[in-house]
């Protein structure tokens, strides 16, 4: 006999509100339906009522974790309309902020995943590390959540003491290499809780159009930093970790390895930070009528912004945001099919969902 188990929209196993209606046979999930929209704020509509400065501050609030990525993508799209090109130093600072944000996001996710695995000490370790990443972000931007770093044509704040930031990053890297990485890659607890569950095959990953670490954990080597470099990524050397198994453990491994790759990029960017301006000179610039699109590899995968401006208008005619979780989340249906009910919170967490981004 099958029965329906609703999980959410408010549930201890979920980080934010959304709903999963699962059809179960005993303890095994047969099928599931997802329901989102509990955080819907109408931000795309609100963006049409903001001018080109205000809209940056607004879109920074789409997500609380990858707020910098949203302004970076939006500013890149708007730079496409204004014809402005950020100076080299600004491009490097954008890379540094983006990688620090990736570290922050991945370590936060690792902590939450550890908690759902029943690995509380690891949760504490990850959150302690996350605080240190946030300290670095605060040292650069003055803020811990919404950094206000990006502007049209560059960045708002300089990195005045790169060696000091580099020392913080190296200390972080050493701590992660000593604790998080070996535990997540070799611990029997992580292996027994994660291996073989929540599998998303490569074929299904392709048909669902998933992005980011979830795609890479299903054997798809897609990463916009490599395939379509932006900012200063074409000057960075790094690997794109890919795992073939498509299970929760593969997603864990991909993110653990990406933490080390982010540290590698940060070391390069801080060491090679070019001198010069951090934004284009002059406050006035013309907006070209039309639409422009930009994509960035956020911690959770590809973010895409399409912006449209009407002639003479200070406000955008349209701002469309395609967030990575919006692309990845429908695949949860396939990941939970055949899974044990008790594994479903961890399977859902394994995509590192951002409901706030998804609902906008």
């Amino acid at each position, binding site marked *: 006999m099958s029965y329906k188990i609703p999980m959410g929209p408010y549930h201890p196993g979920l980080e934010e509100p959304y709903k999963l209606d699962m059809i179960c046979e005993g303890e095994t999930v047969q099928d599931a*339906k997802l*329901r*989102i*929209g509990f955080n*819907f704020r*109408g931000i*795309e*509509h609100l963006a049409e009522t903001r001018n080109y400065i205000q809209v940056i501050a607004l879109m920074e609030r789409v997500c609380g974790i990858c707020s910098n990525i949203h302004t970076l993508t939006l500013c890149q*799209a708007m730079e*496409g*309309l204004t014809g402005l090109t950020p100076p080299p130093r600004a491009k490097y600072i954008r890379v540094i902020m983006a990688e620090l944000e990736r570290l922050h996001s991945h370590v936060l996710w690792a902590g939450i995943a550890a908690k759902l695995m029943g690995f509380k000490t690891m949760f504490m370790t990850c959150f302690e590390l996350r605080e240190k990443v946030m300290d670095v972000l605060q040292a650069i931007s003055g803020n811990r959540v919404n950094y206000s770093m990006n502007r049209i044509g560059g960045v708002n704040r300089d990195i005045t003491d790169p060696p000091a930031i580099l020392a913080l990053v190296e200390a972080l890297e050493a701590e992660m290499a000593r604790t998080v990485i070996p535990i997540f890659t070799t611990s029997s607890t992580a292996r027994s809780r994660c291996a073989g569950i929540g599998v998303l095959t490569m074929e299904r990953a*392709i*048909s*669902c*159009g998933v992005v980011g670490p979830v795609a890479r954990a299903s054997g798809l080597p*897609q990463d*916009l930093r*490599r*395939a*379509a470099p932006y900012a200063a990524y074409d000057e960075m050397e790094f690997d794109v970790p890919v795992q073939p198994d498509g299970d929760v453990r593969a997603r864990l491994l991909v993110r653990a390895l990406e933490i080390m790759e982010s540290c590698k990029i940060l070391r390069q960017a801080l060491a090679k930070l070019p001198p010069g301006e951090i934004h284009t000179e002059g406050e006035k610039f013309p907006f070209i009528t*039309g*639409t*422009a*699109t*930009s*994509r960035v590899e956020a911690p959770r995968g*590809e973010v*895409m912004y*399409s912006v*449209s401006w009407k002639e003479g208008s200070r406000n955008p*005619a*349209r701002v*469309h945001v*395609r967030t990575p979780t*919006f*692309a990845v*989340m*429908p695949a949860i249906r396939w990941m939970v099919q055949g899974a044990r009910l008790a594994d479903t919170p961890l399977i859902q967490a394994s995509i590192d969902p951002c409901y706030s981004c998804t*609902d906008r």
Partner: protein
Amino acid sequence: MSPLESISERLGITEPWVEKGGVHWLTPGAKSVREVAQAMNEFHARFVTITAYQLPGDQGFRLEYHWDLNGQLLGFPFQLAGNSIESIYDLCEATDWIEREIHEGFVIDFVGREYEPLLLRQGDTPGVNLREEKK
């Protein structure tokens, strides 16, 4: 022949690709969105999203369909005189949520599929968010 030229040839479109605003655009002309989606599947392009724009006056809507091909963002604009366009959900599973979202935001009907609510709650009215009512 480059992949983009191969796509043009496969679709039988003689218009050139135009790179603008970060996107490689191909005007589909008389080709339907389903023909484009089938071609994209054959070239193993990854569906990215659909962006909807409401056009001024009675011009209807423009839907921009985006696929990624080896890091290149491809765009196919479709102008809708009315409120409907064929769904490609059966050809491309990844379009499910964005078709539902556009339906709720702009009251555009994707013909050939059934919807369940996505962002809207019971009692909400489609179109109140992004669709401008004509004065």
